[in-house]
């Protein structure tokens, strides 16, 4: 009886240890995954480039308009930002974003949606290449700073 009990306990301990290692690895993988941006730097985005034409040969800041659930407040805070082009991939768009003036909300085509992938927002250069992308909703200050940093105009980045 004791033998069976000892064997069962040894197997259970082994199982718990494996579970612990898997859980630890899971968090490390999540951290590594977060470290890779959704769109590679300089990745060509022809469908998005065609959908959102460049103005004055400058870059474009695209923000995905789809409902952000718990982070809706952060997304709504960006609604006031100028020079942001909103891309809607699904019908579920937060009202605060949907009420933006016409013309700034763009319904994504299937190829454009595929190009955007898991990115929540991105900066695209005048040639239609990805310069920056992120899965998280930025603050207005972060968005403006990144756009200015990547702007080709020398004065804009100072």
């Amino acid at each position: 009886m004791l033998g069976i009990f000892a064997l069962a306990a040894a197997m259970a301990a082994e199982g718990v240890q494996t579970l612990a290692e898997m859980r630890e690895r899971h968090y490390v993988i999540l951290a590594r995954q977060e470290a890779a941006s959704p769109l590679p730097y300089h990745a060509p985005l022809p469908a998005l480039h065609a959908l959102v034409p460049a103005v004055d040969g400058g870059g474009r800041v695209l923000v995905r308009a789809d409902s952000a659930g718990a982070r809706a407040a952060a997304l709504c805070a960006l609604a006031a930002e100028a020079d942001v082009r909103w891309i809607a991939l699904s019908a579920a768009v937060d009202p605060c974003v949907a009420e933006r003036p016409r013309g700034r909300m763009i319904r994504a085509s299937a190829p454009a949606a595929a190009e955007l992938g898991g990115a929540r927002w991105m900066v695209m250069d005048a040639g239609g290449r990805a310069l920056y992308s992120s899965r998280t909703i930025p603050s207005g200050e972060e968005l403006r700073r990144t756009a200015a940093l990547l702007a080709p105009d020398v004065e804009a980045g100072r």
Partner: protein
Amino acid sequence: MRRRSRWIIASLVAVLASSGWKAARASVTIARAPRAGEQAGLATVRGAPVRAEAEGPLAKITRAERAVVFIYAPDCSVCHANMANWIDLVGTLRGGATALYAVSPTDTPAARAYWGALERHVRVVIAAPAQVHRAFGVQATPATLLVQDGTVRGEIIGSLTAAGRAQVRRFAAEGRL
């Protein structure tokens, strides 16, 4: 016979005890697993001097009081995936006391044009692969090096995790890892 069964019982009790100990340690690991994620990608602490030739392209990095060096290659896919992290760092560190360098061991037009508008804030240095390897002891890209007074204090190979980015910011602000 009795002595033998005593031995068997003692062994089984030992197995039980070790299983209990193993399970307890595993429980602690389970509870601390999120911390493993938070600490993933921290810099490897080093103290090796930068071995750059006195008149070579990398010499100015050895003279910097504090510098963050991004080692990249234009044909490296992990560098492309990591670029957003470097852009975030440039955004927060530009104009500060820490010098920002981007070093490419590839001399091509793509390598020279890689940083684009960011060259306003990052000094791009093109050097031969042997020079880069000799100076920093780095063979893989992307690499982020934390250099202080001619010594490589820390090195992060691969994409920068949130913990790695925080460490680079701390180094730039306070000079410690």
